[in-house]
Every structure is written in structure tokens, then in C-alpha cells.
């Protein structure tokens, strides 16, 4: 599962609707999803499993799927319909889980841990819940051995090694591997093969389970932090005592017992 996200340098927050304005930004594959794809491709290389990439998004997300197929994925499925728009993480997870079920028998679902445009980390675990399968989060590497998958999880102060039977869902941390490039041969083949488009009729979910209607999340308020003026000053070695004094007086630094 991947998501096309706006290039973080080109987005801004709509001051009225409190949503991200993605219209003008270039679409890229969410960075953690690139690592999830790479991990899935490594498993496919070793096991020969079929790799299907799914995403939910506007029609432009097609380019992200073609890129994934250019790197080695076998199929690309775009879940796209106006009624799916403005879905929160609950409705998104539910819709994606329905799509995974429709694909048929599967061993592994691999997703990025979180996205750069919302950063909730909800969707991977949400899909696992709706599919009623186990999940391993914060994965940095994995391999499949018969019926089991062996994962390493990054717990910041420790690495946890997990072995668990499939089917299972993994969420993969950003920067946990180096994503491969797409190749010309595979991209030509991907463009010729094309992606599959699934809409509301394909998934056949009740209308009030999806999109904005199916989303219980309410954004209560949004605050944009004020930019703080920073003062720049060039000092030499001789100025250090004066600088420490000034910082102390301004309350930037204090005595140890005061801190």
C-alpha cells in the first residue's frame, strides 16, 4: 500500500478549511512507502511472490503506481472515486482493507509507517484491524521463511526481532533501506500493461462508510505557530563573558538550580 503525497516543499495549509492544499504541489511517493515497496520487492525477489501495489487517491496517483511497477511490482491498483474523497484515517483504512480483500488470498500486506502529509501512522494498523490480521509495526527489514515472516523492529533504544506466521501486516519505517530505481524496460512494460482503476461500484461498500460521510474525525481547531524573530549577532572570543551575561539577563540561560 502506497500513497502519493505532495512534495513537502510545495504544500500549504488552507487557512479557511484547515486542510492541506495539494493542488499546486508535485506528487511524489510517500518516502516511507518507498521503503515499504523496497522491502516487498526484496521479498518478491527471494520468494517469487506476486506483488500488487494499491493506492487510494485522485487520478494523478497513476504516475506513482507506474513508478512502482517500473521498480518491479506486478500490478498497480488505483482506488479512485469522488465519494472516497476527504476520507479520514478510519474510512481510508476501511476502504483499503476492502480492496485488499477483493484482491484475494494474500500472505503479506506492507505499508509505510506514516505519511509526510498527515503523519498519523493510523492507516497501516487500521487496515490490519479491518482485515482482522496481526501486525508488526516499525519494521526496518524482513524476510519470509516458509509460513513465517522474520522482522526487525526499531524501538529506538533496542532492536526487536519478531517471527510471526502469515498473513500479517507490516508497517515499515522511513529510511530503513535504499529504494531501487525504476528501469526503462519495466516502465515501458508498466505503461503498456496499465494500471487497474477501482471505484465505489467495484468495492461495493455502503456509501456512508466511505469518504467524508464515513469519517468520524473532526478537526476542532488548527493553530499555525507564529514565526519567531531570531536575532543574529557576530561575536569574537573576547565577547564571550559579555554574551553569557546578556543571555542570563534575557533569561535564555540560568543558574543550574534555577533550571
Amino acid at each position, binding site marked *: 500500500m502506497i500513497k502519493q503525497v505532495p512534495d513537502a516543499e510545495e504544500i500549504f495549509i488552507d487557512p479557511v478549511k484547515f486542510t492541506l492544499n495539494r493542488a499546486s504541489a*508535485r506528487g511524489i511517493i510517500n518516502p516511507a512507502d518507498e521503503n515499504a515497496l523496497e522491502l516487498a520487492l526484496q521479498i518478491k525477489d527471494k520468494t517469487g511472490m506476486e506483488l500488487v501495489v494499491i493506492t487510494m487517491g485522485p487520478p494523478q496517483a497513476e504516475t506513482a503506481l507506474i*513508478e512502482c511497477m*517500473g521498480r518491479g511490482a506486478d500490478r498497480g491498483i488505483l482506488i479512485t472515486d469522488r465519494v472516497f474523497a476527504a476520507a479520514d484515517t478510519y474510512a481510508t483504512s476501511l476502504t483499503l482493507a476492502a480492496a485488499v480483500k477483493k484482491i484475494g488470498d494474500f500472505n503479506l500486506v506492507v505499508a509505510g509507517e506514516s505519511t509526510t502529509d498527515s503523519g498519523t501512522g493510523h492507516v497501516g494498523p487500521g487496515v490490519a484491524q479491518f482485515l482482522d490480521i496481526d501486525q508488526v509495526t516499525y519494521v526496518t527489514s524482513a524476510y519470509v521463511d516458509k509460513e513465517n515472516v522474520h522482522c526487525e523492529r526499531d524501538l529506538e533504544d533496542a532492536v526487536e526481532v519478531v517471527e510471526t506466521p502469515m498473513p500479517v501486516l507490516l508497517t515499515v519505517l522511513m529510511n530503513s533501506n535504499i529504494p531501487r*530505481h*525504476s*528501469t*526503462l*524496460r519495466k*516502465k*515501458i512494460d508498466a*505503461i503498456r500493461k496499465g494500471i487497474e482503476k477501482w471505484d465505489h461500484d467495484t468495492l461495493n461498500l455502503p456509501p456512508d462508510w466511505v469518504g467524508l460521510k464515513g469519517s468520524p474525525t473532526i478537526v476542532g481547531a488548527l493553530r499555525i505557530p507564529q514565526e519567531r524573530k531570531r536575532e543574529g549577532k557576530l561575536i569574537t572570543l573576547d565577547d564571550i563573558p559579555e554574551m553569557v551575561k546578556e543571555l542570563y539577563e534575557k533569561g535564555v540561560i540560568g543558574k543550574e538550580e534555577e533550571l
Partner: protein
Amino acid sequence: MSEFDAIVVGAGPAGSSAAIRMANKKLNVLLVERADPPGSKNVSGGILWGNALAEIIPEWEKDIPLERLITHKGTTFLTKDSSISIDFRSTKFLENHSGYSVLRARMDNALANSARKAGAMVVTGVTVDRVAKEEGKVVGVEQDGEIITSDAVILAEGANPRVAIDSGLRKPIGDQDVAIGVKQIIRLPENTINERFNLKGSEGFAGEYVLSYLEGEAEAGGFLYTNKDTISIGAVISSSKLREDGQTHSYDIMESFVQHPHIAPLLEGGKLEEYSAHLVCEGGIDSVPRIYGDGYLIAGDAAGFSFSNGLMIQGMNYAITSGIAAADTVIEAKERGNFSSDSLASYERKLEDSYVLKDLKNFRNIDKVTWSRVTHRAIPKIAENLLYSMYHETGRPKKHLMQMILESSRDSGMSKSQLILESYRMMRRM
């Protein structure tokens, strides 16, 4: 049987124009571009001169994202203290369009989309390694160890033509072939730009500068173009003079240009949006490689097709015209079923009949004007001395013009006879 009739490497103006032309004639075309989306990796001066696109996109002024119609042109010598300009603005340009400022990230993407709509397959985000050869003939391209076959390959990969070089189709780029371009895009409100440059609506300004305040051996030209709500400003720096100098860095030159007392006020309060650098074709006709051979053609900057005489810097129109000529050559070769060097030789004849090779041949020695001590140091110094003594009231008796000119040339570092000879040469070369 080849997989494609033609593979075009590079979706800039040359490559996309070639792909559009061939796809319009129902050829089976693959256009490969390393940037995703097309245009996001290039750096360009940013004025599209002429009407070259009309041949493939009749409504190009509507269909291609353009910034401003150039109605105001400036050529300026910048010394440490002074700015001496030839300033030309004309309402004639409103009816007879001469050029538009463009942002290539938008324009190139639109051109590649036009190629896709015309029926070409466009693959982005992939870098071709080299052409594939069989018995000396180009038979396609190679990428990641796989060969994609085609009857013809058009290399339109820009000023740093790695595929052509790595495939042995042209010699590596040297100091004499290229300059270094450094560029910033600075965001300012549309009305601020209009006020500062005295422009109305979507009229635009295009200025070229001689940065004669530079010290040592370094020589550089500057450019400043207005877009809708950004300004493109950059320096084009002679790489051979930079090497001779050994002390100055290209980024210092760029910085000194934007901070020059007569430039900085134009940019004040603007937000730096992009900073980029690229090679710029500057070698003229002597840098043009062999532009065709068995199964391949080279177009645009990759072939060294660009023109600069200090007053105008042009490249995109040469790219578009050469891309279309390359496409027409491939279309004819397909009708003949012959993609040999002999069959593709008409490409060079087409360019010889057009302004592309005529300009390059007519201005063979223009680099001796654009990169010279006379242009970069002596003339600006004389002009500054002369104009300052004309406009500066000292309370002393005034002098005759000829007397002032002679006095002004005294500290230019050149003798009178040298100046007369060099001026004569310059007039001939330009």
C-alpha cells in the same frame, strides 16, 4: 523488427518537439527523460525567442505556459559604481511578438504532455546509460543492462550530453565548449515587479549584463528576466577564464551580482525560491560535433546549438527547430526504410538551410567579443569615465566630446590604436 520507430533521449524543447512531430506522423515513438516531471532538472536562461513552436503546436501561445511577453530589453555594463545601459522598449513588440519569459519546469512538462497526447510513450525518471550499437550502427538505447531497440535514436539530452559522450558519439566537453550558469528564482508580488520594471499587465523585461566590476581574470555575463510573479536572475561565467583566474568561485560571482548596488534594489524583499547551476553551451560552431550517423541524430544543446552575442542569448528556439528537423529526417528515413548515415545526412542540410547553422557559421568568432578584456573591462571603463565627466558638473570650463573620449580611454588599459583596431574587429564579428 525494432520495438520503436524512434527513441528520443531527453524531454527538453528539442526532444519533445522531435517526439511531437514524429508522433503526429504516426511514428511509434519513445521519449525518455531522467527528470520526473520533465523540466525539474534543467536550468535555463528562460526566454523563448521566436515562433519555432508554431510548427508543431499551432496554438502554442495558449497551450504552453508562458510568463511574460518581452517588450523591454536592456543591455547593461555594470562597473563597481556605475550602471551603463542601452534600454530598448517598444510597443511594436505587442503586435509582433519577439519572445516570452518562461519557467522551464512548467514549459517542459507541458511539451512532454503534448508529446504524450500526440501518441508518444513518455517515460520519466529514468536515465539512459548509452546507445546500443550493432556492427557500428546505433540500434536503440541501453539502460540497466537491457536494450530497447529502435530504428533511430535522437539524442536531445542537453548541454552535458553524457549518453553521446559515453557512447563515443562525441568528444567530452571542454572549457572552450561551455560556460557555467548559476541562477536564482526570486519570488515577488506581480505588481511589485510591474512597478520596479515599469511594466504593464503581462509585459516583461529581459536584461543582459556585462559584469565588468569583477577582478582578476574572471569574466561573466548576467541576465535578469521577469516572470509573472518571480524574477529569474543568473550569471553565465566563462569556465576557461575562471580556471585562469583560479581565485574566484562561480557562486561568489552570482552573489556579487545580486548584491550589486544597482541590482539589489530590484530584488529587495523577494524570497529565494530556487538556486541552481548548469553548463551552458558557448562554444559556437567549433563545438558542434558530428550531428548524425548510422541510426542516430543529435539535436539542441547536445549538438551545441545555442547563440549568444551578449545582446541576445538564445537556445530554446535552436533546440525546437533542430528537434523538428531531426524528426523530419527520421520520418523521411522511415519512408525510405533506410536509417543509415547517408539517409540521415539530410538533417545537416536542413539545418544549413535554416537559421540554426547559418547563425552559428556567421558568428564563428563571436566568443572573441563576448569573452574579451575589451568588452569586459576596457569599454565599460571608457563609457563610465566619459559619461561621468559629461554628467558631473564641476564648475570648471566644459570640454569637447572628442577630448573627453580620449581622456576617458586613458586608464582603460589599452592604447588608442589597440582600441580602434579592437572596435573595428568587434563590429565585424557582431
